[in-house]
Every structure is written in structure tokens, then in C-alpha cells.
């Protein structure tokens, strides 16, 4: 068993506003190996972004709070290191890029300087050297170095996202967290940016946590995938295992609800019902109310994680090998 780069164990995050508490992330388990690309899929509101912010310790407090858990990164528990240490990790060991490129860049700062900012924070080199490095990074993401002195509003959405990627990768982080990086872009630009991410991932040998609700992107880029529902992982495994042999009723429902090029279908089959309100989660399995295969036990107890195959895990009582 190779040692993993990042190991999240039993992470729980809550948001409290006035008297209302939302359990955004509940007992999350996630593992990312060196150089691996792991997908995190789920509907909007499943807790994907919160999990990512949790790794970076960027959860706004108030109203958010990490209730429990351990996040092991290269042997250290990120939830216990000092803020100063965490700042040295952000941007240089673990980087994150966000969904909306239009608002992710400081509008009154030159794009080159924004890349240089990351460099100067983590590397002890002169401004001149840093500027050169930033220019090289611009070229690597497909932007001519001459555009160093321009401002974000002079770039299109896709190019802004490239700049964001440049800022994130310039210090060669071990892990890149990408939170729906292409959702806000046009389809053709999406493809370009994804190609860029793939290329850079290989060049820098960066591990990646790709958060998305687009299963196509996962298939394209990821080695492993985790399916998230109401704050927990319901199924995880390699892309082949989960996509070709989905076991959890939710995962199966997900695949049934997207149109398939091969099968002839009259209508799409959505999963009936809606994700539960994170302030009012049901006792027991969170998916039980919508699950066609639920049994009595599902409504009262939360299922453990069960290993089906080498690396294929599911969280469902249907696969429990315990006695009734």
C-alpha cells in the first residue's frame, strides 16, 4: 500500500446562522494518492466545496466550524497545525482554484503581479526573478508573456481561468483542488481548459481533487472517484469500478438520469425527491427517503463503509455482511 498524500478521516463541518445549524459535511472519508487525480462528484449542496475549503482551512468562521476529523497531509494533521504553517502550505503545497473566473482575480492588480504574489509568498527570490518565473508560467498556460502587465478585465473568461490556474500551479504544489473549474465557462472553452489542466497535471506530477457535478469530466480526467451525498461519501472507487459497476442506489440513480448515447430512451429517469435540508438531516441514511431499495434499518442507523472490491467502497446496508 503506497502511502497516500492526503487522507481525510471522519471530517464533519457545520454552519450555524442564528439558530439554524446546517450539517454540511458528515463523517467524510477521502484519500488521495501521490500524483492521483481523484474526482468528487455530487449534486449542488452535497458539501463538496465545504470539504475542499475544509482541507485548506478556509472555512469562514463564523458561521462555519470544523466539528471533528483528521486531515493527514504528508504525515501532519492539517487541522492541528498553526495558522502560520497553514499559510505556508496554501499556495505552495496545496492550491485551490475556484468556480467563477470572472470574480476570482483582483480587478485592479495586473495579472502577472497576481501570479508573482504567490511566488513571493513562498520562495525566497528577488522580485525580478519572480517576475520572470511568472512570465514563464503565463506562457505555460497559453497566455503570451507580453500580457503580463494587463488587467483581468482585458481577458476573456477562459483566459482568466488560465491565469487562476497559473497562480495555483506556479509553486508546484503537491495537490491541486479544483472546485468546478469549468462550470462557468462555455463548452468549447471548457474543453480547452480541461486539456490544459490535464497537460499541467502530467508535467508537474500534481495530485488533483477534481470537484464537479459533471460526470463526463470525471471520466475524462480522473483515476478515482468519490460520490458524495448530503455531506458523506456514499461510494468510492476507480472510475471504471464506479462508472461501469455502480453499486450504491444513489450512484445507480445518477447514471440512469443522464442521457446515454447508446440506449434508446423516451424520457430521462430522474431520482425522485430532493436532497435533504442540511439543517434537518434524517436519522439514519441520508438517502433512505429517496431510495427504492431501502430497508427498515436504513431509516434508523447510518451505514458504515464497506469494502466491496479492491479499492471499491460503498456506504449502504444492502452490502452489509453482518447478521440481521
Amino acid at each position, binding site marked *: 500500500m503506497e502511502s497516500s498524500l492526503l487522507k481525510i478521516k471522519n471530517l464533519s463541518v457545520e454552519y450555524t*446562522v442564528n439558530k439554524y445549524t*446546517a450539517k*454540511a459535511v458528515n463523517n467524510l472519508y477521502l484519500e488521495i494518492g501521490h500524483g492521483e487525480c481523484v474526482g468528487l462528484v455530487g449534486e449542488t449542496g452535497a458539501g463538496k466545496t465545504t470539504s475542499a475549503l475544509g482541507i485548506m482551512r478556509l472555512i*469562514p468562521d463564523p*458561521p*462555519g466550524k470544523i466539528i471533528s476529523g483528521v486531515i493527514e497531509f504528508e504525515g501532519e494533521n492539517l487541522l492541528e497545525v498553526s495558522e502560520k504553517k497553514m499559510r505556508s502550505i496554501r499556495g505552495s503545497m496545496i492550491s485551490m482554484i475556484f468556480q467563477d473566473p470572472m470574480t476570482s482575480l483582483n480587478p485592479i492588480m495586473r495579472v502577472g503581479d497576481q501570479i508573482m504574489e504567490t511566488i513571493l509568498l513562498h520562495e525566497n527570490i528577488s522580485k525580478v526573478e519572480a517576475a520572470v518565473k511568472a512570465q514563464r508560467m503565463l506562457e505555460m498556460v497559453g497566455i503570451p508573456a507580453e500580457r503580463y502587465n494587463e488587467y483581468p478585465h482585458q481577458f476573456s473568461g477562459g483566459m482568466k481561468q488560465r491565469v487562476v490556474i497559473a497562480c495555483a500551479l506556479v509553486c508546484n504544489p503537491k495537490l491541486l483542488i479544483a472546485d468546478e473549474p469549468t462550470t462557468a465557462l462555455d463548452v468549447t472553452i471548457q474543453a480547452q481548459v480541461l486539456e490544459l489542466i490535464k497537460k499541467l497535471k502530467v508535467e508537474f506530477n500534481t495530485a488533483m481533487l477534481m470537484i464537479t457535478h459533471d460526470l463526463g469530466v470525471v471520466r475524462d480526467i480522473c483515476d478515482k472517484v468519490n460520490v458524495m451525498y448530503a455531506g458523506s461519501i456514499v461510494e468510492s472507487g476507480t472510475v471504471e469500478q464506479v462508472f461501469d459497476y455502480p453499486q450504491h442506489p444513489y450512484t445507480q440513480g445518477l447514471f440512469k438520469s443522464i442521457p446515454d448515447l447508446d440506449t434508446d430512451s423516451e424520457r430521462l429517469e430522474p431520482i425522485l425527491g430532493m436532497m435533504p435540508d*442540511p439543517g434537518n438531516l434524517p436519522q439514519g441514511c441520508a438517502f433512505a427517503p429517496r431510495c427504492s431499495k431501502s430497508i427498515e434499518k436504513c431509516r434508523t442507523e447510518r451505514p458504515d463503509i464497506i469494502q466491496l472490491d479492491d479499492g471499491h467502497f460503498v456506504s449502504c446496508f444492502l452490502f452489509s455482511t453482518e447478521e440481521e
Partner: protein
Amino acid sequence: MKINKTKRQNSHMQEIWRKLKINKVAMASLIVIIIILFVAAFGTYLAPYHFAEQNYDKVLQYPNKIHLFGTDNFGRDIFSRILYGCKYTVFIGFGATILAAAFGIVLGLLAAYYKKLDNLIMRIMDVFIGMPGMTLLILIIAVLGTDIKIMVLAIAISYTPTFARVTRGAALSVINQEYIEACVAIGANSWRILFKHVLPNSLAPVIVQFTLTAGLSILLGASLSFVGMGVQQPIPEWGLMVSDGRSYLRSDWYMSIIPGLAIILVTTALNYIGDGIRDALDPRLNK
């Protein structure tokens, strides 16, 4: 389409009201304003003494049980004068603001909707903004006289550009939305579009502006009266009362300080309400 819009706008307003209710200070201020409006309407009947009733043997009394706020240098009961003066404050403040809002909203809507008028209207507004309020007011009153109606009109002119600008901004973002395109496509008349669709949905920041401007109008009115360019003696306008008390500040400070407190009560309440509405409009963190 019309049905959809009314439903959406109603629940938008209800949402704002709901958020506003949570804000205790804003609600308290709202109650204060309602009381002020009441006093403005009925102050004449509530006051124990007539505002001009002079009593030379009761001159310059400190606040006491009979004269709650004391008496001034003519022996007039200050408490009664404050109650009487309330209606001037309200008339000037709200009157000017209503006028300014009426002019400003129309101008702002026109500027937002008709691109050709936009530049012209906004340039004219710029001229008025370029001149500070007090200066413009002193000019207008110097020329046209110190009638209270002139005061209200002058203050209204002073704040019309602000309403025009706010309305224009809000209207522009509404106009760019597709349902307006749809209205035009089905052949709706421009005025109808402006007043039935654009205006209701641009209203929120305008309401904030209304409360803030009402406070400012009251301050301007009081300032004008203070320098003698507004309401004249013996009308108990609060600003004028502050000015009256100037020579007596040393010993009978209540003559000036108390009317000022009355002004502050109203303007602070209006500002709290304005702030409260603005916060309620804000799309907040909902988790």
C-alpha cells in the same frame, strides 16, 4: 407574464419586510417615525400651550413639571413649541423628499430606458450635483423668497439628481433582463413597461434612498432656518428654535439643545430605518 411579475414582486417585498422585522432597532425607529407623524398631524391639539403664547413672568425657566422643556426668552413653553414645530419638520422633510423622488424617479427611468435622453439628463443632473446643497438653496431662496413652499421646492430640486441616479442605476439592471425584451416583443406600450414592470422591480434601493434623503432634507430645512433663510418667526421650526437659543446658551442651554435633540431623534430614526432596509435588501449568507 403580468401575473408572474406581480407574484414575484410581492414575495420579494414580503421577504424584505420579514428580514426588516428581525432588526429590532429599525422596527423601534419605525415606531418613532409613526409617532412623529402622529404628532405632526395632531401636535396642535396635544400641546398644552399655544406656540406663540408669551408670558413675561415665566421667562427662561428651566425644564420643570409645568413646562416640561422649560420656557424661552419670551416665556413661551418650549414643549408646546416642539410639538407645534413637528409638522414643519415633517412637511419640509417628507414633502421635499416626495417631490424629489417624484421628479428623480421619472428622470431616472427615462434616462435608463431611452439611451438618447440618458446623456442629456445625467449631464443636467451633474450640474446640480456640482453645486453644494446649502449654496444652491441660499441662492434659490435669496431670489425667490423665504416662503415655506419655496423651501420645499428648493430642497426637492437639490435632491432630485440623487434619486435620478439611484433610479437609473436600478432600472438599468432591470431593463437588461430578458423579461423586458419579452414585453417589448409582445408590443407593450413603453409607459406601461416603465411603470408596471421596470419601476416596481427597481423600487428597493429607491426606498432606502427615500429614508436617507428624508433625514437630510430635515437637516437642510433646519439649517436654512438656523441662518434665517427659512421659516420665519414666530413659527416654532426646530432649526429656528436652536438659533433663537444661541444668545442664551451660557445659562439657558435647553433652549437650543432640546430642539436639536428633537431633530436628531427624527433623523436618526430615519437613518436606522434606511440602514435596516438596505441590510434587508442585501443577499446574505444563507446556510
